[in-house]
């Protein structure tokens, strides 16, 4: 699929929760996007060289929505959060492979800033859907929107909302099961889900994250360990940006 470097236009931006922003960008990238893919977003600050890879949360006909966390003062994401309607934003996409969306009963699991790609995925997924979200505390986001597509279960680390604990605690407490799991979130969460899916014989797809430079498969910064020799790299490494970010859990070592 052709990748496009585009000068997008900001349509709107809101803060959904503390440090969590939602931005709609008008761009031709929308026409070719699949759920679970990501875009590179470029800062205007020349001291910050590298694009920020951000997963696509939602797609409309000619625009995409990104939901992202501002990671600190003087960061690229802080700069993005100050963009206003009508501003330009340079984006490259669509990147990566995306989630499978054929009809199977599915548990969609999102942890923290791994939640956003689950919205478009839930929207496009055929079949029965259960959605499990993990948060640190009661500062939730996207949970209400996800309710339109399936029953939502919440876990929070401090127990202030939903099941106290992690997403697997919520799955066990509510005795949830399905033919397939799709998950995105921090690596320790994905590692636990991979083990859980394996033990319970559930097909499982994980969206991984790794530091990236180019986002298009050239720099080989964002590799993950694969269980077999990869057909492209000829070693037990896969590129998260190109062969991923979504992998069948059995293909990768976490």
């Amino acid at each position, binding site marked *: 699929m052709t990748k496009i*470097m585009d000068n997008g236009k900001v349509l709107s931006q809101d803060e959904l929760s503390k440090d969590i922003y939602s931005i709609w960008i008008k761009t031709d990238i929308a026409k070719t996007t699949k759920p679970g893919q990501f875009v590179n977003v470029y800062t205007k600050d020349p001291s910050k060289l590298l694009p920020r890879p951000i997963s696509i949360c939602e797609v409309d006909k000619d625009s995409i929505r990104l939901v992202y966390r501002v990671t600190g003062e003087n960061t690229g994401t802080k700069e993005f959060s100050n963009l206003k309607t009508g501003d330009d934003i340079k984006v*490259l996409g669509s990147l990566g492979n995306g989630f499978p969306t054929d009809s199977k009963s599915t548990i969609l699991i999102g942890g923290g800033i791994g939640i956003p790609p689950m919205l478009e995925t839930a929207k496009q997924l055929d079949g029965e859907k259960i959605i499990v979200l993990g948060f640190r505390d009661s500062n939730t986001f996207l949970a209400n929107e996800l309710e339109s597509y399936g029953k939502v279960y919440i876990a929070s680390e401090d127990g202030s909302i939903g099941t106290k604990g992690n997403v697997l605690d919520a799955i066990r407490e509510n005795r949830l099961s399905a033919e397939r799991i799709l998950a995105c979130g921090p690596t320790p969460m994905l590692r636990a889900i991979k083990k859980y899916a394996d033990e319970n014989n559930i097909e499982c797809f994980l969206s991984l994250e*790794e530091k990236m*430079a180019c986002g298009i498969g050239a*720099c080989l910064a964002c*590799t993950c360990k694969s269980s077999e020799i990869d057909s492209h790299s*000829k*070693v037990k490494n896969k590129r998260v940006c190109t062969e991923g970010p979504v992998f069948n859990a059995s293909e990768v070592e976490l």
Partner: protein
Amino acid sequence: MINTKVKIAGVEFKNPVTVASGTFGHGEEFADLVDINRLGAVTTKGVANIPWEGNPTPRIAEVYGGMLNAIGLQNPGVDTFIERDLKFLKEKDTKIIVNVCGRSVEDYIETVERLSDEDVDMFEINISCPNVSHGGIAFGTNVESVSEITKQMKAHSKKPIIMKLSPNVTDITEIARAAEAAGSDALSLINTITGMKIDINKRCFAIANRTGGMSGPAIKPIALRMVYQVANAVKIPIIGMGGIATFEDAVEFMLAGATMVSVGTANFFNPNASIEVAEGIEKYLENNGFKDVNEIIGLVK
């Protein structure tokens, strides 16, 4: 009509712009975004005799005005390179410079021999990667080993060779002279400068290898100084690189004595940077009354 052609060791390039090894994959990765036919040459990612796994992740970190990398020369090996990557590049109307890496002199020899009868134009010999424990920079930081590996490459290669020099040495002109004396056809410089970043929240190194090679606009003044020094120390042509992101940067390197320039890290934040640099150089020549790009090489003494 302005001449943008340059010649190195008998190889003619349509313009003086290539891409720095490791920042452009083998070319195909950028094919959607860059018209490869408009480049003077593609310089490939490092190729070894067998596939290399590279280093653990995280392999990169952003730093002010640049980045650190410790990829560790992951590559699919020379056989896959020939069957897949070279096949793609051969279809393009550009010259092909294959960057060669190895852990031992024998590794380098094997790769160069395997590629010598293929349709490649030059070899760039990587004796300056700071991120691998054997090979790479180990060959490039003392005069005797540079001299030895250069001689071996000349003896086994049917194509002209470019020795790629490390800035992580006390006196780069000494290394450059050794490579020239041993028969190198050209030199490329600089490779990355060893650096470090620490994550103060996790209290650990930002990249798994602890140190990484720094690249990007922040290193340009150092690279430019070294290109100038080497240009005044040797007679063989130089491919200048290190932080080049715009045509202005490239013109500086050529004025300092580089015959060609490589765009590296800039490819990550502007995939079309190399083409913009090539176009910009031509405009610069036109605007300043030059008829031939060769007129500006080493113009600033």
